[in-house]
Every structure is written in structure tokens, then in C-alpha cells.
């Protein structure tokens, strides 16, 4: 048997967490460096996975070990073009967010262990192909994030942590009912075998009569996670209260569990219901785009501004998903990665500003660029990436989504395009207020980014540039899978995806 690389991706962070937990409590200076060092193991595995991943539809590196036949339960893992980029993103962001947590002094060991546990859970979510295993990881992720927000967050952390937990747990409980129903549906259809295996249920299909309610319960769980308007209210609280590492991972990968869920489960399993639900989700996505951006503009708090920009950006991903075109789906996948990189970087920068000035209020800043030019440069660069400036990664995703959705939802695409303009307004205006002008008081003596900070931002910056200039490196591995999803929806419903005239942009369907 080949080396079980996918299991290793889940197990190595767990082992790393255990190793860190076994370090002596007194040696606090060791905890973080050891954690960072160990978190490069899953990163190396993910890098290898990326290189070896072939640009094909279907699952690769699959592992299938039965756990309990009575329930048809199995340790079933696999990776395809939708999950591979997310695994890579997780593996990249964890060492970065750990490295950016030097200011954490309270219970460092527990902190590092929780971040690594979070990594294991998140990668598990993206790799699991058994619905129960998926659900286990989906819930497991809540625990470390709950602790990360609750212990190391700011003043209102307890409220934020509990709200985060209960909101998401509620969504997933209903999904569990859906999963049970799917397993029993399999049992009824096959005449006796209970199974929660994703591929088996996919092969069998879901009867059109039960598609709608199942779609709703799955969609509710994922919509809370994304979050889709109006289920987003936990997000600003969680983001603002979380420590920097928590915000980076929350925005970078945890929210993607929602968009991933739509792509992995809702579209392929409930195609008819997905087609029927397009109007609702498209409306909510567009509301999210415009509302998130509008609220971001008026935010006096820089971290909240970035948090609301997430609501807006995630709206694009939902719109792309429910555009039900190849381009829309590709865009949704790659926009997920882009958002993780650029918003992650922006949260890092907000964290650095907070460490130096102990405030997140935009009004308290001004003229930082004079004292910290490099930091200002990074902020501008990341803002451009987030806005979607051509040449940087954000452009690729938003462009694909807008092209893809224009074909099926023209009016929605047109309104959504305003989100790009609004993003320019809130980010550049924030930049102007924080970094330009004459510095006063403490702002004049703000230290510039250095050492580890430059390294973490630099890595993200390079990735942003690479994906902006040469998106094919990732897109060519995404496209076969997203095309297969659209084909599946087409083959099982009356829906036909329109041909989109493509310029040389997103790989090989031009």
C-alpha cells in the first residue's frame, strides 16, 4: 500500500499537538518555536500533495479502511481539485499564524496545541469522504477555536466564543439529521446496507422528493459557517475578539469549510434542489456582498472592517458557486484561496498595529507610513490584492466569478461588481486614514515590521503574486473537478450551463 499521505496530513498536526503538550510547562520560550517547526511537517506533506496531484476529476490518494460494518462506517479519505487547494492553504496558514503569535504569553502550550488541533480538524474536514467522519471533524474544529477565542481573545471574548460555538453547533445539528437520513436512504435503496460513504451515496443519488429538505439542512449548516447574510452576526464578534492567529485561521480556513461544503455536498448530492435554490442563494450572496462592503466602509474599528470585508468577499464565493457555470465554480474555489491569503495578511497587519498601539480604532491612527514604511507598503499591497487589482490574486477569482455569473445571473453579477468598487473605497480609505498624513503622538514612533513579521507577510505576498500572475498553476488542477460538478448537475437535472466565451484566463476550456 502506498504511503497514506492524507491520513498523515491529519495525524501529523495531532502528533505535533501531543508533542507540544508534553513539553515542560515552565519552558514557555520553547512552545511556540517547536509548534512552528512541527507545523512545517503537514506543510511539507501538503506541498508534496500539490506537486503530485494530477489535473483530473475524481478523488486521488484515496484511503478506505472500514471502521464499523454495522453502520457502514469507514475511514474514507480522498482529495480532489476542490479540497486540495484548501488543504494547502490550511497547511500554509497554520505555521504563519503560529509564528505571528509571539505576543501570547498566557498558557502558551495550550495555545499551540489548540492551533495544531484546529489544523488537524480542518484538514480532516476537507479530506473526509465519509459523511460521519466529515461531521466529526466539522464539529471537532469548534472546540479549539472556542478555546482560542475564549482564552486569548480580547475583552468580550467569552460572549464571542460562546456565540460562535452555539451558532455553528446549531447549524451542524440539523445537518446531522440530514446525514442520518442520507445513510438510511442508502439502506432503504440498497435493501439493507446502512452507509454514510459519500461516493456510495453519490452513485446512488438522492430522490428528488427529499432533495429539498436535505439541501436546506446542509445549506443551513454551511451558510452559518460561510457566513451568508443574515446568518453572519457571529462573525464580527468572533473576528474582533479573537487573537490574531484565531482571526487569520477563522477567515483563512474555517469560513471555507462552509463554501467547501456547498461545493462538495450541496451541488453534487442535491442537484435539482441546488438549481431550484439558485434565486434564493444568489439574492443572499449579493446582499452579503453589498451589505458587507457597506458596513465595512463605516466601521471605526479596523479589525471589524476587515471582518465585514470577509462577509463581502465570501458573498462572491457563494455567488460563483450558485452561478452554476464552470467559471463560477473555478472562481469560487480560487477566490477561497485568495481570500484566505489576503484577508489573512490583513488580519496579521491589524494584529501588528494593535501590538504596537494597543488600539484598533482607525481614528487613533494616522501617518503610520512615515514611521513604518514597510508596514504601510505591505498593507497597501494586501489591500490591492483584496480589492482585486489585476496582477494580484484577488482579480483572478473575482473576475472568474463575475464572468461565470454574468452568463446565468446577469443582474446579480452587475450589482456584485459594485462590491469591487466598494472594496476599493473601504480599504483605500482605511489606508489613507491609518497610514497617510502627519503622525502625531505615539503614531510617530511606531516600529516598522521586522524579522518574523516580514517573513510571514513576505510569504503571503509571494503567494499572492504567484497566484495573480500565473493562476494556471492552481487553476489547471481545479478545473477538471469543477467541470465534473457542473456536468453532474447538468446530467441529473434539466439545467444546462451556458457556454461562456472565455479569454485566455482560466486554463484549458477557451
Amino acid at each position, binding site marked *: 500500500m502506498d504511503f497514506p499521505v492524507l491520513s498523515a496530513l491529519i495525524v501529523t498536526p495531532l502528533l505535533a499537538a501531543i508533542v507540544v503538550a508534553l513539553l515542560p510547562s515552565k519552558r514557555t520560550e520553547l512552545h511556540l518555536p517547536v509548534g512552528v517547526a512541527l507545523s512545517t511537517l503537514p506543510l511539507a506533506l501538503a506541498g508534496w500533495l500539490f506537486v503530485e496531484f494530477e489535473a483530473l476529476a475524481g478523488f486521488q490518494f484515496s484511503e478506505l479502511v472500514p*471502521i*464499523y460494518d*454495522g*453502520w457502514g462506517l469507514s475511514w474514507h479519505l480522498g482529495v480532489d481539485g476542490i479540497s486540495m487547494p484548501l488543504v494547502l492553504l490550511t497547511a500554509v496558514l497554520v505555521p504563519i499564524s503560529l509564528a505571528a503569535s509571539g505576543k501570547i504569553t498566557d*498558557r502558551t502550550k495550550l495555545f499551540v496545541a489548540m492551533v495544531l488541533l484546529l489544523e488537524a480538524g480542518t484538514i480532516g474536514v476537507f479530506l473526509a469522504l465519509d459523511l*460521519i467522519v466529515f*461531521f*466529526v*471533524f466539522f*464539529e*471537532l474544529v469548534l*472546540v479549539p477555536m*472556542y*478555546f482560542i477565542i*475564549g*482564552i486569548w481573545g480580547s475583552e468580550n*471574548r*467569552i460572549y464571542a*466564543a*460562546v456565540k460562535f*460555538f*452555539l451558532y455553528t*453547533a*446549531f447549524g451542524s*445539528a*440539523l445537518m*446531522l*439529521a440530514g446525514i*442520518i*437520513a442520507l*445513510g*438510511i436512504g442508502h*439502506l432503504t435503496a440498497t435493501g439493507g446496507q*446502512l452507509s454514510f460513504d459519500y461516493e456510495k451515496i453519490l452513485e446512488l443519488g438522492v430522490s428528488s422528493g427529499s432533495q429539498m429538505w436535505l439541501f436546506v439542512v446542509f445549506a443551513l449548516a454551511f451558510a452559518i459557517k460561510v457566513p451568508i447574510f443574515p446568518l453572519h452576526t457571529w462573525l464580527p464578534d468572533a473576528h474582533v475578539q479573537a487573537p490574531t492567529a484565531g482571526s487569520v485561521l477563522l477567515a483563512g480556513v474555517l469560513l471555507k469549510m462552509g463554501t467547501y461544503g456547498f461545493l462538495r455536498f450541496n451541488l453534487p448530492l442535491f442537484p435539482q434542489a441546488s438549481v431550484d435554490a439558485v434565486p434564493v442563494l444568489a439574492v443572499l450572496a449579493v446582499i452579503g456582498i453589498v451589505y458587507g462592503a457597506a458596513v465595512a466602509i463605516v466601521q471605526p474599528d479596523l479589525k471589524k472592517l476587515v471582518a465585514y470585508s470577509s462577509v463581502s468577499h465570501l458573498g462572491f464565493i457563494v455567488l460563483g458557486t450558485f452561478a452554476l457555470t464552470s467559471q463560477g465554480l473555478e472562481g469560487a474555489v480560487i477566490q477561497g484561496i485568495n481570500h484566505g491569503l489576503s484577508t489573512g495578511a490583513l488580519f496579521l497587519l491589524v494584529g501588528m498595529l494593535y501590538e504596537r498601539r494597543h488600539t484598533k480604532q482607525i481614528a487613533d491612527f494616522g501617518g503610520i507610513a512615515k514611521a513604518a514604511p514597510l508596514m504601510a507598503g505591505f498593507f497597501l499591497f494586501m489591500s490591492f490584492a483584496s480589492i482585486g487589482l489585476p496582477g494580484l490574486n484577488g482579480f483572478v477569482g473575482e473576475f472568474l466569478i463575475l464572468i461565470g455569473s454574468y452568463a446565468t445571473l446577469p443582474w446579480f453579477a452587475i450589482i456584485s461588481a459594485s462590491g469591487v468598487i466598494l472594496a476599493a473605497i473601504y480599504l483605500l480609505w482605511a489606508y489613507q486614514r491609518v497610514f497617510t498624513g502627519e503622525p502625531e503622538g505615539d503614531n510617530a514612533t511606531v516600529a516598522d515590521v521586522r524579522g518574523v513579521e516580514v517573513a510571514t507577510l513576505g510569504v503571503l505576498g509571494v503567494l499572492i503574486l504567484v497566484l495573480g500572475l500565473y493562476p494556471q498553476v492552481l487553476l489547471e488542477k481545479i478545473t477538471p473537478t469543477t467541470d465534473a460538478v457542473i456536468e453532474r448537475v447538468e446530467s441529473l437535472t434539466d439545467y444546462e450551463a451556458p457556454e461562456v466565451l472565455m479569454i485566455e484566463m482560466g486554463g484549458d476550456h477557451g
Partner: protein
Amino acid sequence: MGELGASVSLVAILPEVALVLGAVLVLLVDVTWKPDLRVHAILAAASIAGAAGGLLAQWLEIYPDTEGIAGAQGAFPIFAYSDMVVIDPESILFRAGVVAITAIGTVFAWRLIRRLGRKGAEALALVLIASSGFLFMVSAGHFMMLFLGLEVGSISLYVLAGISNEHKESDEAAMKYFLLGSVASAIFLYGVALLYTATGTMTYAGTRGFLLSLGDQIVFRPAIFPLAVGLILVGFLFKIGAAPFHAWAPDVYQGAPAGITGYMSAVAKVAAIGAILRMAFVPFSGLVDTWQAPLAGVAAVSVVVGTLYAVVQSDLRRILAYSGVAHAGFLLVGVATGTTGSARGVAFYVLTYVIVLAAAFGIVGAVSGASSSGSPLDAYRGLSKSSPGAAASLSVLMLALAGMPVTSGFVAKFGVFTAAWRGGFQWLVLVALVASVAAFAFYLRVIVLMYFEEGDGPEVELSLGTRISTAVVLILTIGLGVYPTPLLELIDRAFF
């Protein structure tokens, strides 16, 4: 089953004999030599080990040769003493649960036993006697045997609840437990009497045969049957603390000495659920349409009431008591479904739940003092800093009670819910799912206090025995959460 003499079987009562012998020895040795407590520890350990050995002997007895011709379970059940005691894989499983709780409960109660001084030996003997009663209860094949086991166990527990005279609350708890428990026993007994009037038999097998022979003809099924079954079940719902028969539980668990509440609550629950399952599947299987709907109703009410009341409590033991009401509801979801799958789910649920419950009460006892009455939540503020081990253990146990994945609590809920959904109780599953999310509110509150709130928690000293027991429970809880297959397969073998 033939003559009384023909069905005598020592193996069938070996564990009970070991426990009762242990209890007698503890008492005799105590009055004769007034020895060090360590002697009692050795006696109790030997007695519990003897009970475990007896279980093993029973297992080997009913599975003499896997190749042989055996019943549907591949086993040769023992029907001893004219069907009074039935030893089959199912009863051995629940007996193992009782013995395990006895072992864990004694370890956690040790500090209380030491504190009780000369009365410690009595407490220890009561624990062993109670367990022997509960052992009989789960393998009863006759309603009188069931009643005797229930009373031997319950009366011992009433005394244990009031064994410490340091707090008035303890006496109050014992009195309340005694009065309400006796009423429940009386109701149960009345049901048994009615059933006997109607059927002329008190054995499970005889009752089952009689009821099945009636068939579906309504005219042959007078109201006496629903009445009898109803009274019997109400008696038991009282014992497991299902709503609306739960009012005693919070006061008793709060008032009784902290060291013993874990044993009290856990052992009663595993034994009562074992007995209810057997009643549902053997004597009352022909009346399934009579008890199914009411039981489902009680399950829904318990889940909702337990969760809602637990949210507003400010004492951890009251929270655990109300969460116990909710858990009784989850268990009854499986019992009410009445399929083999749901019985398996209930078995896994109750066996994993009670060890978590016992350990949680054990840590609570360590935090608030062995003989204390009441465990206010405020004492847990900042516990993660003063006693990281206790806080971490309690957190895992809370998450397990909440049914968080990667703990046995999730597997248990999943098993019961899947079986119930399959059995047509979708509405009940939805109610239970929503309640389990709401329940996070109070389980998380404990974690919030221990980890998120600033404060100086108490320095908790955990004895070596407590540490080992807690570690074993945690390993089992997470181990069975990650890889539940061994226990699930064992249960599959027991419930065919």
C-alpha cells in the same frame, strides 16, 4: 424451566455472592478488629475483583465453545432458579457496567469513606450490597426478583445519601430520596400485582407468552394491561429520573455527600435502563403499541425539561442532575423505538454515559470536598490555572456529556438517533438534536468558568486512585469516541 432444584446454578449468582461476601467481611472485620482503612480497601477490591471474575466465568459458561450449536446469539443463556435469574450476553453486559461503576465509584468515594471514620466501613458495605441488588435487577427474569434487586439497591442508596451528618442538606436529600423512591417502588409493585392478576404468572417468559397468545384482538386485551405496564414503567421512570418524574434528582444529587453522588446516580441509571430494556423486549414485547407512544412522549419531555432547567442552575451538581434528566430522555428515545438497533444504541449509550457521569461527579467531589452538600459553580472560576489536570479532565467529560464528536458521547447519541430515525421517530430525533445543541450552553459554561474567567480556583488534590480512575475513564471516553468498534461489536453480539 423445570424443578426449582434443577435450575440451581452457582455461576449465575457468582458476582452477587462475591459482593455480598465482601460486604459481610467488611462489616465483620470492622467490628472485630477495628482495622486500618487499608484492610477494608483490600477487602473491597478483592470483592469487586471477585465479582468481575464471576462475570468472566458467566461469559465463559454461556459461550462454552464457539463452534457448538447455540442460540441466535451464539450463546447458551442460563435460566437459573426457575427463571428468576437470567444470564445471557445482554445481562452480562449490563452487569459489567454495574461492576465497573462499583469500582470507579468506590475509588471516587474513598475520601468520603475515610472522612466518615468508623462509619466508613458501613458506607463501603452499603455500596457493595447496593451493587449486588442492582446486579440481580439487570438479570432478573421474574418480576419479584426485579423488585427485590431494586429494593436492595435502592434502600442502600437511601442510606448512603444520608450517611454524612455534617450537613443538614444531606439528611434532607436522604429523606426526600427515600420517600419518593418508596412511592415509586410501591407504584411499580402495584403494577406487578395487576399484571399477575391478569396473567397468573410473574416470570418474564410466562408474561411474554401470555401476551403474545392474545394476539391483536382488542377484545382480549382489557385495560388492565395498559394500566399494569403503565404503573410498572412509571416506577422505573422515577428511578431513572425521567421527566415529569425527576423532581427528586436535583435535590438529592446536590444534597448527598459529593463523594458518593457519582456512584449513586450512575449505578441506578445503568441498572434501571438494563431492566427497562429487558422488560420492553421480553415480557412487554407483545404490548409494544401500548407503551411505545407514551415512552416517546416521556423521552421528548425529559430531553426538553432537563436541558432547559440545566441552563438556569448555578450549582454544578444540579446541572449534572438535570443533564441526567435529559440523558434519561435520550436513552428513552432508544427504548421507545423498540428495535434491536435501538436497543444496541441504548446499551452503548448507557454504558459509556455512566462512567463519564461517575467520573464527572468524582471530580466535582474532589473540587468541593468529599462530604460537602452543594457544588456552586463559582468554585470553578479559574480552575484551569490552579488545577489544570482537574480542569482539563472535567472539560473532556463535559464535552462527552454534551455529545461532542471524538468522545463516546457522540457515538452514543449517533447510534440512538440513527436507530430512532430508522424506526420512524424522526420527530423525536429532531427534538433531541435541537436539545443537544441547547445543552452546549450549560456544558460550555463550566468550561468558560474554568478557562476563560479570571479567578483563583481551589487547589484540588487528586489522590492517586482518583487520577488513575479518571485517566481510565478519559481514555475509554476518547478511545471509544475515535474507535468505538470493539464495544459496538460486543453489543451486537449481545443483542441479536
